[in-house]
């Protein structure tokens, strides 16, 4: 027994070491994939350590096997089946389930053991329940919004929601204080319900496109919930790992906010940005307010491409919606065959999640070295013959540089307006995520090619093929 204790505890130490290495490695491109494997290995080790220590009986093994089979299989299938473009949604779903797990553990302990529980135990249970429930319901709402299942109700944009949320928080607090009186009373259900509603109330008002930030924050919460569960069952490993993930998630949330030029506070309490509430259709801005728009056909665009020596594609959210990445790659290959230099300008917040464009283009086997980050490609636009903007809008909006009254003001953008010729492929003059007009469309060197990104790209391919 003493040997197994020592062994399981050495395994625990090793697991934490590997988890730390994993988290660290995940933040570097080179090591990310192996770091992910390392972290998975660490989790496996931790389980082995625990089983060596606790030695489950036959009945326990049965339930463990059942839980493992169901959860593991479901996770595996979900992860393998989900399309790459639905990534943030799945992450939200997984995260919510993590919160649910902490919640269930705390509930079980509260139901059966709180009679002899001390203050520390009560506090850990309460924290675990509250944070677990918020993580669960908040993550599901985030997922629903990203999928477009849930709209942003009008009332949530007013000040009234703060009142509602504060009231919910107060109810949860009261229930928490009443909890030690007895687990059988209404305190525990009240706590669960109030926390769950609070998770919904806090997440619902936030615009769909801010969701990645919210998910990252909820992810940090689920770390906190795990650490609290660690206090509940008295496991240092759980406390360390939970605290580590909680803190790392907080930093990542901050980093993501910075990359999107928003502050965490404004994401959380500012409501949906502009009109693009559900994050699926550019809402406000409409087609009004534009004059001097030049539009042209795919044929004219193809002609310009034939004569170009250097072409830059700017992919945006619309390219993802149209699932046009493969067609784009086909077009690029044709251009390369005719000797044209092709690259892709990747804006850090193009699309609806960080790295969205990288994932999208990687799916179509675009060579990595052709993806050029914003800072690297901006100086090259003046010597670029043709820029094709594919379903991007905000990330090429020159007003961000020049108009202090624009909501985008201050965000670095791709300076496509400095190139010789720009074609903007989109379905209409509708606005992008930020819901504002785009001065680029009116510039003399810009021509609009209206249509679905995939359809337009397809006709460009056809044109180039027939020309060759």
């Amino acid at each position, binding site marked *: 027994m003493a040997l197994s204790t020592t062994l399981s505890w050495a395994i625990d130490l090793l697991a934490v070491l590997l988890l730390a290495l994993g988290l660290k490695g995940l933040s570097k491109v080179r090591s990310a994939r192996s770091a992910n494997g390392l972290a998975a290995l660490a989790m496996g080790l931790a389980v082995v350590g625990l089983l060596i220590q606790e030695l489950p*009986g036959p009945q326990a093994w049965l339930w463990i096997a059942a839980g493992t089979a169901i959860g593991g299989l*479901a*996770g595996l299938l979900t992860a393998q089946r989900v399309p*790459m473009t639905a990534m943030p949604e799945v992450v939200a779903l997984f995260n919510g389930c993590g919160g649910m797990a902490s919640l269930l553990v705390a509930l079980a302990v509260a139901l059966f053991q709180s009679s002899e529980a001390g203050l520390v135990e009560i506090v850990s249970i309460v924290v675990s329940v509250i944070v677990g429930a918020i993580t669960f319901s908040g993550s599901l709402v985030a997922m629903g919004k990203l999928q477009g299942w849930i709209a942003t109700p009008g009332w949530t944009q007013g000040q009234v929601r703060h009142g509602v949320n504060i009231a919910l928080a107060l109810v949860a607090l009261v229930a928490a204080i009443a909890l030690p009186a007895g687990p059988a009373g209404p305190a525990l259900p009240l706590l669960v319900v109030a926390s769950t509603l609070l998770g919904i109330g806090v997440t619902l008002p936030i615009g769909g496109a801010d969701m990645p930030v919210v998910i990252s924050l909820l992810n940090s919460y689920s770390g906190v919930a795990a650490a609290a569960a660690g206090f509940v069952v008295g496991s240092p490993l759980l406390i360390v790992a939970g605290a580590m993930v909680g803190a790392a998630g907080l930093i990542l949330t901050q980093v993501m906010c910075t990359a999107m030029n928003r502050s965490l506070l404004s994401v959380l309490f500012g409501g949906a940005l502009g009109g693009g509430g559900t994050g699926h259709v550019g809402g406000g801005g409409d087609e009004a307010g534009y004059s001097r728009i030049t539009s042209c056909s795919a044929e004219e665009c193809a002609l310009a491409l034939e004569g170009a020596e250097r072409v830059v594609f700017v992919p945006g959210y619309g390219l993802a919606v149209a699932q046009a990445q493969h067609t784009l790659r086909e077009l690029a290959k044709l251009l390369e065959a005719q000797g044209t230099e092709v690259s892709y300008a990747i804006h850090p917040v193009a699309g609806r999640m*960080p790295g969205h464009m990288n994932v999208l283009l990687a799916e179509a086997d675009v060579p990595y070295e052709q993806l050029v980050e914003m800072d690297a490609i901006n100086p090259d636009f003046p010597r670029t013959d043709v820029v094709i903007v594919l379903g991007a809008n905000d990330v090429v909006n020159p007003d961000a540089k020049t108009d202090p009254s624009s909501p985008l003001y201050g965000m670095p953008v791709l300076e496509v307006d400095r190139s010789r010729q720009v074609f903007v492929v989109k379905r209409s003059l509708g606005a992008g995520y930020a819901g504002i007009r785009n001065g680029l469309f009116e510039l003399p060197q810009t021509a609009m090619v209206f249509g679905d990104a995939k359809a337009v790209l397809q006709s460009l391919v056809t044109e180039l093929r027939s020309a060759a």
Partner: protein
Amino acid sequence: MNGLREALWVLLLGSLLGLELIGKVPPTLHTPLMSGANAISGITMLASLTLIVRAGDNPVLLLLGAASLAFALFNVVGGFVVTDRMLAMFSRRAPAERGGRSN
């Protein structure tokens, strides 16, 4: 009280370590890192396992434990697999760069 003191030490140090581990992250890695960290937060499955083992014959506890284990493992397995899928996309071309274009 003594156990709590040590537990809080561990909490403090774990948090500080977490804060330090993540420095600059390139935007490309935001989503995979989020997803990987999310998988790690499923570590709460250890609590579920403990619950099951200590449940004795109490069926409610066993059920709650198994349910929470399923949820946690859904998080862990799904999280790691999905992260790997994402990262595989970035790294696929790394060997191809050496051996010439793959397509």
